[in-house]
């Protein structure tokens, strides 16, 4: 909320996950944040992924409004089927909390406008961030360049040793074909003020806000 509030033109308001789907009717877009505020039973995001409020999110997606899922929000988007694939336990079996670098795709997506091919410093904090999907989905995402962010080093080199959780193809974030849904494990909102150590995430949030207008 605080990260979004500082962006001119944004007028964010909180819609609790227990709300009626109608609460999202007039929203210009939605951010599903991380933090497991909806409980984390069965699998990360599974219970929230079948929650009633998801009907409202689906409507936003279908009416071409932007939806950004961060961390647990990404897990929820994957569990609900809005984005392909699943987020499995990290290969290390540990909770991972650290700053990482991600390389932004060269493709033009509304969320990555102005930061194409950049290397961003963003924090991750998750136990289930190991992105996995079928060969078929992977092929499709490669072809349509839907892998918005991939874990890399500071120079943008993408390799096994820059992969913090075992994600297939070092995937850190993906967009849907239509380009209005982004799911990502790193936290852009935790890199949105100099005092937090990085402002690299701000561009993503700004792009989200612009897409709502």
């Amino acid at each position, binding site marked *: 909320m605080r990260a979004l509030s500082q962006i001119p033109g944004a007028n964010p308001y909180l819609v609790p996950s227990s709300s009626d789907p109608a609460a999202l009717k007039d929203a210009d877009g939605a951010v599903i944040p991380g933090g497991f505020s909806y409980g984390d039973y*069965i*699998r990360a995001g*599974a*219970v929230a992924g*079948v929650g009633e409020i998801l009907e409202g999110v689906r409507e936003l997606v279908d009416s071409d409004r932007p939806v950004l899922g961060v961390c647990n929000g990404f897990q929820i988007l994957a*569990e609900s089927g809005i984005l392909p*694939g*699943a987020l*499995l*336990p*990290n*290969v*290390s*079996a540990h909770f991972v909390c650290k700053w990482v670098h991600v390389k932004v795709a060269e493709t033009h997506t509304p969320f990555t406008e102005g930061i194409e091919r950049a290397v961003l410093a963003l924090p991750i904090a998750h136990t289930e961030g*190991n992105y*996995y*999907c*079928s060969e078929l989905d992977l092929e499709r995402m490669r072809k349509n360049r839907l892998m918005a962010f991939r874990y890399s080093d500071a120079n943008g080199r993408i390799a096994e040793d820059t992969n913090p959780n*075992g994600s297939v193809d070092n995937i850190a974030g993906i967009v849907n074909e239509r380009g209005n849904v982004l799911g990502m494990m790193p936290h852009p909102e935790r890199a949105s003020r100099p005092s937090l150590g990085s402002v690299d995430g701000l561009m993503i949030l700004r792009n989200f806000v612009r897409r709502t207008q």
Partner: protein
Amino acid sequence: MTIIYEGKSKRLHTDPDSTERIIVEFTDAVTAGDGARRDLKPGKGKIACDTTEFIYSALASMGIETHLVKRLEGPRLLCHRVRIFPVEAVCRNVAAGSFCRRYGIERGRALSQPLVEFFLKNDALHDPLITAHAIADLGLASEEDVEFMRSVTLSVNYYLTEMFSQVDLKLVDFKLEFGKAADGRILLADEISGDGIRVWEKTGASLDKDLFREDRGDVVAAYRQLLQCIRKSDISKVPSQKERIRVIVMPRDGIKNPQGEVTKKALNRLGLKEADTVRSGRIYDITLDAPLTNSLLMKIKQMNAKLLSNPIAEKSQVRMET
């Protein structure tokens, strides 16, 4: 109305109004020893029909799906047409009949828990005992269908035992047959009457076909007395039985399972050097307050794919726990 099939004590007729239904007519014939002994006992067909109608209606009121549609005039029932599985399910609470002969134990010995056995329906082979694996292997029914029949058989046993005990009768054992309807549902078929059940009074007297098998008395009078007794019972007073479903969720083969790998290392360290791989998954135990039906099982499978497991990365199994 043409005869489709003539069994030892029933005739099946086509239903002139629907190809999905049949008419079951109960005859007065009584047989024993795989049909080796046969006799006609006037009035027996109607009592068997009345008993089946009463019991099947009672079971249906508790949610057990049977082939009975409605009673017709005379000793006849209108039923859903099913393809009968060529196996019989026998449920035993007390040792009697072939169970005693097979294992050489005394009649009347209580079993520690209800026992379900399956028999191949084949008079020439004298209806041999058959295992669930053999049933599946011979293509007579799938393993899941066998588990379903076992589950329903135990539910029937629970409700009938409770019902009968209300009127001071002991349900010793009984035989059921199942069939698959055109829509894929497995329905309790055939009949439940004195012909396919063993019931003892408090005194130990039989109210069933043992009287005929052992030439001990008037079988029709006993069947009539059984019906009169159970008509005084009230199944709605029997608390509903809890069914248990277990859903087992495991990571798909080839998917890394960090929890399992960490567990394996710990087991090796603790001294279980033989542990080669460990895969860790989840188990959900679901209790239902209704007997298992095909549509309920289907619903649970849908819920499993939707919530309990993630088919992208996990494989799962829905098991009927009996």
